[in-house]
């Protein structure tokens, strides 16, 4: 970790002290809150050794003894291949597949906010009026198509979809009335 003012890396002394200190290079004030995890040793990876007679071997490393079973695909895994997420033992392939399908919330790195897309399609083009002829149905389509798609982890969930449908429906109704008034 570097000092934001001079770019010098903080030495151990600054970390050791905790509390408020100064950068040893430029003297800029810095507040450190240090926790016991700083001193915790990393757990060594125990080698389970070669599989004995009648013992299962790892799916990916046949020369290693299996210690656990993937709880999704059932493959035998050695300690190296075992990935524990929220108490569930999984293999890397299952994690990748789950991430693609959006089934592993604990590891999800990104979410697309379809509700916001639908709302933007319904609201922003209304500033120019005429694009809503196309974007209002598009907003309804996006809102209905992705209604069940996972939304923000922390924010509002369905309100964007509902607002988008409401505004887009209103716009579509106005267009229908406008055309009815012109042609009939």
């Amino acid at each position, binding site marked *: *970790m*570097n*000092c*934001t*003012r*001079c*770019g*010098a*890396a*903080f*030495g*151990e*002394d600054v*970390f*050791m*002290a905790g509390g408020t200190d100064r*950068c040893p*290079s430029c003297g*800029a*004030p*810095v*507040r*450190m*809150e*240090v*926790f*016991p*995890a*700083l*001193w*915790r*040793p*990393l757990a060594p990876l125990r080698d389970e050794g070669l599989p004995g007679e009648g013992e299962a071997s790892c799916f990916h490393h046949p020369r290693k003894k299996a210690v656990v079973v993937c709880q999704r695909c059932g493959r035998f895994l050695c300690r190296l291949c075992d990935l524990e997420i929220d108490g569930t033992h999984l293999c890397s392939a299952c994690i990748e597949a789950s991430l693609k399908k959006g089934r592993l*919330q*604990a*590891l*999800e*790195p*990104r*979410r*697309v*906010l379809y509700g*916001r*897309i639908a709302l*933007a399609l319904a609201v922003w083009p209304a500033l120019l009026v005429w694009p809503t002829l196309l974007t209002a149905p598009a907003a309804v389509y996006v809102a209905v198509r992705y209604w069940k798609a996972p939304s*923000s*982890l*922390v*924010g509002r*969930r369905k309100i964007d979809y509902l607002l988008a449908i409401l505004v887009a429906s209103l716009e579509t109704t106005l267009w229908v009335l406008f055309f009815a008034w012109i042609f009939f």
Partner: protein
Amino acid sequence: MPSAPYKRLPGRKRHFLFGHVSHALWMGDDHLLWLQGSFFSESYKRFHYRDIQALVIQPDRRWKMQGLFTGLFTLAALGLTFHWGKTELEKVVILWLFAWPFPLSFLVNLVKGPTCRAHLRTAVHAQKLPSLQRLRTASKAVEILKARIRQEQGILAEERWRALAEKARARPAGAKAFPVPPAGPKPGKVSKASRLHALLFALLLVDASWTALDLWQSHPAITLVNMLLSLALGFLTVSVLVHQKRSGTGGRSASVVWAAMGFLCVVYTLSYVHYLTVSLGYGGQVFNPWRWARLLSPLPPLALSLPNFIYLFSMTGSLALGTAGLLLSNRFVPEASPVADASPLEQEA
């Protein structure tokens, strides 16, 4: 209702450049959620409380810089309001239409208080926390987080803590240190971002000199080159901002680049307002760059007029920012601490 019960920590950062609009921190049951939201998507990073090693807050000078520049722009805007507005009504209209953002931003900056940079450290990397950009908010958030992390990790006894610290201090030079990731280029090597910084500051000085020349010499070619220089400055500033964001460059020179961006925005706005005023005076006529340069170049340098004010403002601003940038920029990155792979406790074992 959200499936994971998250509670938002104080602090939020919103900006509209480069597509990212917000940063925030949310507290979960067993982890801290770092959220970066853009228009239509959100990116997450999770830091389990048991893995957080340190929280670092460092006050910076952005507050002072922002205060200085918004204060200057406030004075300039109020000066222009009283210069242009002949009647009370005109003054009010100008203030509400044009000048109000500057005093408002000055006051908001003043009320929000000093700025800082916050980082979170785990065994494998350090994560910047952009949402904690004000010292007061950051302190509040850190207090909440500290309590939660201590709940998870416990508190190390004072004696034990001191013993570990003494042991680490007593380690001979060259021994393995904390796992500090190497940041930026090697010592003595100038990074691309630093080169771009230097180029930008040099161009600001060239712009200042050229504006002075343009002010005293009435030739449309000089005025045209001055306009092109201003345009080039805008492109270069955006490019430097993108580079420094990608490379994570911070510090004084980065603040000067942001100040240059704000300064150029004001210059462009003033120039645009001037162009509109002149264009409306000529019955809505559109000027090409050459005609515009011919129109501007014969102006007497000492006359009290808006273009001369823009010239003087642009000249002094470019000179101040270019000089400050060149003086303050750290072209050589200081030596980084040795990188290691073991914590003191491990070595003790």
